[in-house]
């Protein structure tokens, strides 16, 4: 039953561009995929270790800028810039983790917020590197041998592969002694340490993987929109990620993906359905109702 549903879902995902003719719809799906990677990365911290990063947009932005700058200035191939973006964001995650995860909890939240704020200011003011508020236009589309992945259909498959990759990374980690250590720290830290779980070490590890994955999403975003500006550091991105994780079901593998699809499609659907005055109101009302009736999220409520 579960297996059949999985196969059906995989077939649907693989054939989606043939069902959706409208490029605008495909665009929404691609954005949902990029947010799916982002939400999965945040979930690794928020859902499994219980630590809230409110500066996750910083790792996303670092990935976007790294990838854009390497391809624009140094003319690197996208296929090298992508892992470089993951590494750059991962290093940032390591530094923040080392700094803040000794204290954890509220301190970690504050340090991540401040970090995102500082990085955003750097991106605005370091004109020589980032071109400031004007941003970096003309980020090249990825090429695969003789083909350019300029079309939405091609890019859809690239993002789909990234979503599958992120999902698999999370799945393998979660179902291992590493994932159990992360959950143990969330559930009962003194008890976890009494059986030998090194709290700081595992939280930093989670921060590195999480930040690297956010960097991956950043790179995909940069080469999709072909433009990077300080807007990638907006706090709204972080808030959206948190909403996706919490509404979808934190601490579940599928939750962030369900949340990402729902909360990428919802604003677009509302835009089509009502005038702008009512959009945010309806969005907020739906969110409140969702959290009220499904406090643990959509996935835990309907499965298991």
């Amino acid at each position, binding site marked *: 039953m579960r297996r059949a549903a999985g196969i059906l879902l995989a077939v649907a995902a693989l054939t989606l561009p043939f069902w959706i003719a409208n490029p605008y719809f495909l665009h929404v799906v691609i954005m949902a995929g990029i947010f799916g990677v982002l939400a999965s990365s945040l979930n690794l911290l928020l859902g499994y270790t219980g630590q809230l990063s409110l500066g996750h947009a910083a790792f996303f932005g670092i990935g976007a800028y790294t990838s854009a700058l390497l391809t624009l200035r140094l003319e690197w191939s996208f296929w090298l810039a992508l892992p470089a973006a993951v590494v750059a964001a991962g290093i940032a995650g390591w530094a923040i983790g080392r700094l803040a995860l000794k204290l954890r909890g509220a301190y970690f939240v504050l340090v991540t917020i401040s970090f995102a704020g500082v990085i955003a200011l750097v991106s605005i003011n370091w004109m020589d590197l980032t071109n400031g508020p004007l941003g970096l236009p003309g980020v090249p589309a990825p090429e695969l041998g003789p083909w350019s992945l300029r079309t939405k259909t091609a890019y859809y498959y690239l993002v789909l592969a990234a979503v599958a990759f992120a999902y698999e*990374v999370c799945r*393998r*980690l979660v*179902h*291992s*002694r*590493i994932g*159990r*250590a992360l*959950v*143990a720290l969330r*559930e*009962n830290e*003194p*008890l*976890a*340490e*009494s*059986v*030998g*779980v*090194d*709290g700081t070490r595992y939280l930093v*590890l989670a921060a590195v*993987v999480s930040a690297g994955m956010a960097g991956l999403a950043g790179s995909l975003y940069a080469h999709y929109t072909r433009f990077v500006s300080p807007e990638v550091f907006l706090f709204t991105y972080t808030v959206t990620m948190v909403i996706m994780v919490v509404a979808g079901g934190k601490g579940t593998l599928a939750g962030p993906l369900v949340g990402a699809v729902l909360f990428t499609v919802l604003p677009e659907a509302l835009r089509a359905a009502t005038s702008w005055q009512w959009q945010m109101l309806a969005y907020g009302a739906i969110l409140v109702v969702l959290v009220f009736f499904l406090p643990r999220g959509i996935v835990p409520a309907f499965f298991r």
Partner: protein
Amino acid sequence: MTLSVRDLTVRFGGVAALGGVSFDVRAGSITSLIGPNGAGKTTAFNAITGYLRATRGRVSYGDAVLSGLRPCDIARQGVVRTFQKTSVFPALTVVENVLTGLHLRGRAEVWSVLARRRRVREEEAALRAEAEAVVAFVGLAHRRGEIASALPYGEQRLVELAVALAARPSILLLDEPAAGMTSVEKDVIGSLIRNIRDQGITVLLVEHDMRVVMGLSDTVIVLNHGAVIAEGSPATVQSHPDVIRAYLGTTRAEG
């Protein structure tokens, strides 16, 4: 290996919770640490296992110095504790609780986990089998799939014991394992502790229930006001005048 505590002192501000306590826990023994409320038993546990930094003194286990180490490093030395207040991983099932306790038994690191090496999968299967065995040992096989926080109190204490055992201690520090239990449950936990000792695990026990303490212990150490006032076999300690005074107070004739 002997756990040796030398001149262990813990001060909270001006108050000395422990004022220079020294004792040894002989390998293979069941040793109890008793004393009236506020005598410093739990403080001693916390200081030995790294949850509290001692003001002065030294704790060592065999050749390893434990003072100054973090709790997770102390666990790595084979010194594992339980907590006075029930302490489980609440949202996890009984088996998952124990599986988490097996953390140090696993070797898999992040790269081999991500690459899903065959060695990692074999280790995972071995750990799961071991977790089931530990769950069966404490007599919770029939509860294996239930969420730990939903179990009755007495069984949660058994989960806690199973988690600690999963860490394969060579010395186990139990903080009031029988507190709040019915007398039947106390007998169960008593025979479990004896079984644990028979497997070669040294046990250091903090316990209020004198029937449990006197029935189990090879050695009893009595603390009062942060100092050791008596030490010896249960019989010796029970008839020690200082111990009687500490527990029952002084009579006018003695005072």
